[in-house]
């Protein structure tokens, strides 16, 4: 599949890193700069009955990318993500809890190789 502009790199990203509180780390511009797409993980303020099916869908979609050899990474995370990925047969991708944009950038550069 080489017929368009896709980057073949997909990060599963905590909702709070895509919708950051004032002053908190914003992952969005770093993902854009480093040419990564995002699968958004459920927000931490969602109750378990709302978050669980969303988390399962995120893992289900990640599986399709993994099956086709796309690079996967986890930025932040969510309780139950590892189990959801395992249920869908996805090997644990590299993961980071970034504390700065530069740290996240370095991680994505390495994970995308």
């Amino acid at each position, binding site marked *: 599949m080489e017929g368009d502009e896709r980057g073949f790199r997909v990060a599963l990203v905590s909702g709070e890193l895509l919708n950051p509180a004032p002053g908190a780390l914003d992952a969005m511009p770093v993902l854009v700069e480093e040419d990564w*797409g995002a699968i958004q993980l*459920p927000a931490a303020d969602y109750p378990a009955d709302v978050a669980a099916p969303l988390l399962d*869908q995120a893992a289900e*979609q990640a599986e399709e990318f993994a099956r086709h050899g796309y690079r996967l990474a986890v930025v932040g995370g969510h309780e139950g993500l590892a189990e959801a990925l395992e249920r869908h047969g996805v090997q644990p991708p590299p993961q980071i809890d970034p504390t700065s944009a530069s740290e996240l950038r370095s991680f994505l550069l390495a994970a995308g190789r």
Partner: protein
Amino acid sequence: MPGVAFVAHCLLNQNSKTDGGARCPGIYSPLVDELRARGWRIEQMPCPELAFTGLNRFWAVKEQLDTSAYRRHCRRLAAAVAGAVELHVRRGDDVILVGIEGSPSMGVHVTSSDPKRGGRPTWPEGTDELSPGSGIFMEELTAELAERGVQTPRAMGIRHQLPDHDAQAEQAALAELMEAG
């Protein structure tokens, strides 16, 4: 908080597009930037075609996907999204939906239709499959919200795969949608 925008999956992940459809490596930032500049929270909806027909899927019209199995798949995904929409609506948040015009699944006002399309994936040059209406996922999401007693939020679709795409007009339309609450 100004509001919550539930956006089509591919707005944050162009890797989910049918081959030939990705406009950038990952995040389609012009519209994401517009939402964020106004302080809107972004929530990504799933790509219903990705987990059903996969990354190697052909471009399809609505009739090709409109099976009971695909509707059940969309309803399962829509139920999860509706749970989050309902949560925000009950909290009193302003909620909008941003789909993909021309999509057989995510179209809001424009979908794609050709009842004769099938078989070997070639068709006469110039065949126009765009038609008024919503895609299958959007129909199932609307039905799921109605069952929960939640009014369907204001909605628009991104038009970047339509021949008359005008990026500035699209940003203006998104701004108007946000302000209409």
